[in-house]
């Protein structure tokens, strides 16, 4: 390390939260609400309040009207139609039951939620049991302000590179300043990861880069449902602008309605069956595929939700959406051509009902652990078949992690940091900067995107195509030791590239194991759901550098909703 002459700083805190999005901020504020004496530090790669996904999407909260459906009814509907019996029904029940409480919390924390003149929430129905409520896009910023009022310390522009462990427990994190490279050694009694999902930097705006997932994996935390990191959705062919609800009005180049091939009535949520239908039409030479937005009320006027104040008045968001929609519309003109593209959304860090990972003292909340929590079952991270659940799942996780983390902090004495481990992790962190010769992070990322990107490799899969993807990933993995960084921005890219290789390998290897189709997970060569053999989770674990796979039975016998057929 002498060559780099890196400055070092040591910090000690009760709780360190990695990631300043809505999940991390929720955990921070809730801990302070419960005990204002606890020291909390948030470290964030960019700027807390602006980072994360809650403020970069459609600003939607899932809503359950308990006069129309009970949590039990929704769990039953979800197990049959969305989670395909792979979900943790107890955790999902708790999520649904806390719906009103979570929305109330956000309102108390300064988040702008729309109400009508009579004081009722302005809800738009999205299905037989669910609705959605628009929330203004400064949601994360408002909760940052609340966190600051509570005395939460926030350090921006700091990248977490690894988790410190001692005797198998998490005792802190290490990281570096994105601007000047200073190495931080942060000691904590509890570590909460809120770093988002893996999106391979493939489609614009979907920003999770999986570096938190990779750090947890390296530290020895188990992963679950990695094969469900294969979210994809519809994009405009010219502007690459995300489309919502437009799967309901898809047509091939012969003018045939192809939505009818996979769906009987309009649905709110994205479906992998629309991805496979697009692929089949394209492969049969019946592409390109177009949408007829005028044929369905929501797609005919969908932009109004975002660019006008008439449904939900969201002035902060409207300012931003008008720019985004305006630039896309200028590019698209009258073109209605659409493409199905891979996004990713791998969220595999395994957590229990207390949001603790398999490493004591290490918690994971929000999109890093959505599939890993098993709450949603056989679907990728939000909005995979459950629109509006992304923000509220993050809030739900944050509230739970706050309580369990607080419990640990109150019982735990300070643990020592292993200085030999710090030295090794420091070397690993800065290694790409020491290379005078080598390859760029972008080259690695491009290789990985070419492996996972084609939807027939990752969404509408077959053994042959999974193997093609995996071979590409293995080849890229061999290049990793030559990664070279020119500055700290580039160093961060190198760490993200490493995380992408890991995520893609887990994705393909786990997908190769699951020899069935279930929920979002579609295999052309195994089209049936196999409840006899595959009511199981695939678990991935780092065993001294070797990627180990095992399975765990879904405890279906203790859940109220069971599959009718084997």
């Amino acid at each position, binding site marked *: 390390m002498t060559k780099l002459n890196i400055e070092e700083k040591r910090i000690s805190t009760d709780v360190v939260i990695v990631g300043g999005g809505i999940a991390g901020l929720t955990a921070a504020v809730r801990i302070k609400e419960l005990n204002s004496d606890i020291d909390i530090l948030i470290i964030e790669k960019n*700027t807390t309040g*602006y980072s994360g996904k809650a403020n970069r999407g459609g600003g939607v909260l899932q809503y359950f009207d308990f006069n129309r459906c009970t949590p039990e009814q929704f769990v039953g509907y979800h197990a049959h139609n969305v989670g395909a019996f792979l979900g943790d029904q107890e955790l999902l029940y708790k999520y649904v039951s806390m719906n009103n409480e979570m929305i109330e919390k956000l309102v108390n924390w300064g988040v702008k939620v729309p109400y009508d003149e009579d004081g009722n929430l302005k809800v738009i129905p999205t299905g037989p049991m669910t609705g959605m409520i628009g929330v203004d896009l400064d949601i994360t910023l408002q909760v940052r302000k609340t966190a600051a009022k509570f005395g939460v310390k926030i350090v921006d522009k700091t990248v977490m590179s690894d988790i410190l462990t001692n005797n198998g427990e998490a005792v802190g994190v290490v990281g570096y300043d994105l601007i000047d490279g200073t190495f931080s050694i942060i000691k904590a009694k509890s570590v909460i990861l809120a770093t988002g999902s893996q999106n391979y930097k493939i489609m614009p705006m979907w*920003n999770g880069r999986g570096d938190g997932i990779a750090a947890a994996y390296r530290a020895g935390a188990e992963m679950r449902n990695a094969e469900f990191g294969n979210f994809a959705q519809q994009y405009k062919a010219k502007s690459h602008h995300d489309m919502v609800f437009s799967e309901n009005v898809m047509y091939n180049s012969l003018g045939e309605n192809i939505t009818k091939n996979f769906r009987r009535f309009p649905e709110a949520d994205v479906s992998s069956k629309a991805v496979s239908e697009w692929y089949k039409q394209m492969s049969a030479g019946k592409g390109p595929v177009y949408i007829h937005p005028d044929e369905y009320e929501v797609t005919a006027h969908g932009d109004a939700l975002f660019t006008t104040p008439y449904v939900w008045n969201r002035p902060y968001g409207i300012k931003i959406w008008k*720019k985004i929609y305006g630039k896309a519309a200028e590019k698209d003109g009258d073109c209605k051509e659409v493409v199905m593209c891979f996004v990713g959304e791998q969220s595999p860090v395994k957590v229990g009902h207390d949001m603790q990972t398999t490493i004591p003292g290490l918690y994971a909340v929000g999109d890093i652990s959505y599939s890993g929590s098993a709450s949603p079952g056989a679907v990728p991270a939000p909005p995979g078949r459950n629109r509006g659940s992304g923000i509220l799942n993050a809030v739900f996780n944050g509230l739970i992690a706050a309580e369990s983390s607080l419990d640990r902090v109150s019982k735990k004495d300070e643990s020592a940091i292993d200085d030999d481990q710090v030295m090794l992790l420091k070397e690993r962190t800065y290694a790409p900067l020491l290379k005078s010769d080598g390859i760029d992070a972008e080259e690695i990322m491009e290789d990985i995107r070419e492996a996972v990107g084609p939807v027939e490799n990752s969404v509408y899969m077959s053994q042959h195509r999974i193997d093609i993807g995996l071979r590409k990933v293995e080849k890229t993995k061999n290049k990793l030791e030559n990664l070279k960084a020119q500055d700290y921005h580039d160093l961060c890219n190198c760490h993200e590239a490493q995380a992408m290789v890991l995520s893609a390998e887990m994705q393909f290897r786990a997908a190769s194991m699951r020899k069935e189709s279930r929920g979002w997970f579609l295999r052309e060569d195994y089209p049936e759901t196999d409840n006899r053999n595959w009511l199981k989770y695939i678990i991935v674990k780092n065993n001294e550098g070797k990627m180990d796979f095992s399975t765990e039975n879904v405890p279906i016998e203790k859940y109220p909703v069971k599959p009718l057929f084997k």
Partner: protein
Amino acid sequence: MTNHKVIIDKDKCIGCKLCYKACFVDVIRWDEEENKPIAAYQEDCVHCTYCEALCPKECIDVVIDFESERLYQSFDRYR
């Protein structure tokens, strides 16, 4: 590698730092001496356009080069 451009009119900039804070992908860096933004890593821009939309003096223009964005599909028109 994309080819989007973040064009900043520094003469109109009042140094409020909102664009720097809002950039969640570290494209915009801050020149502390001049108290002005720098479009340091434009190749990583994901055209969220927050910088442009939030700038109180309208001095930023995010110019999107859509053709430089790949879609990674196996059909010639979407590679």
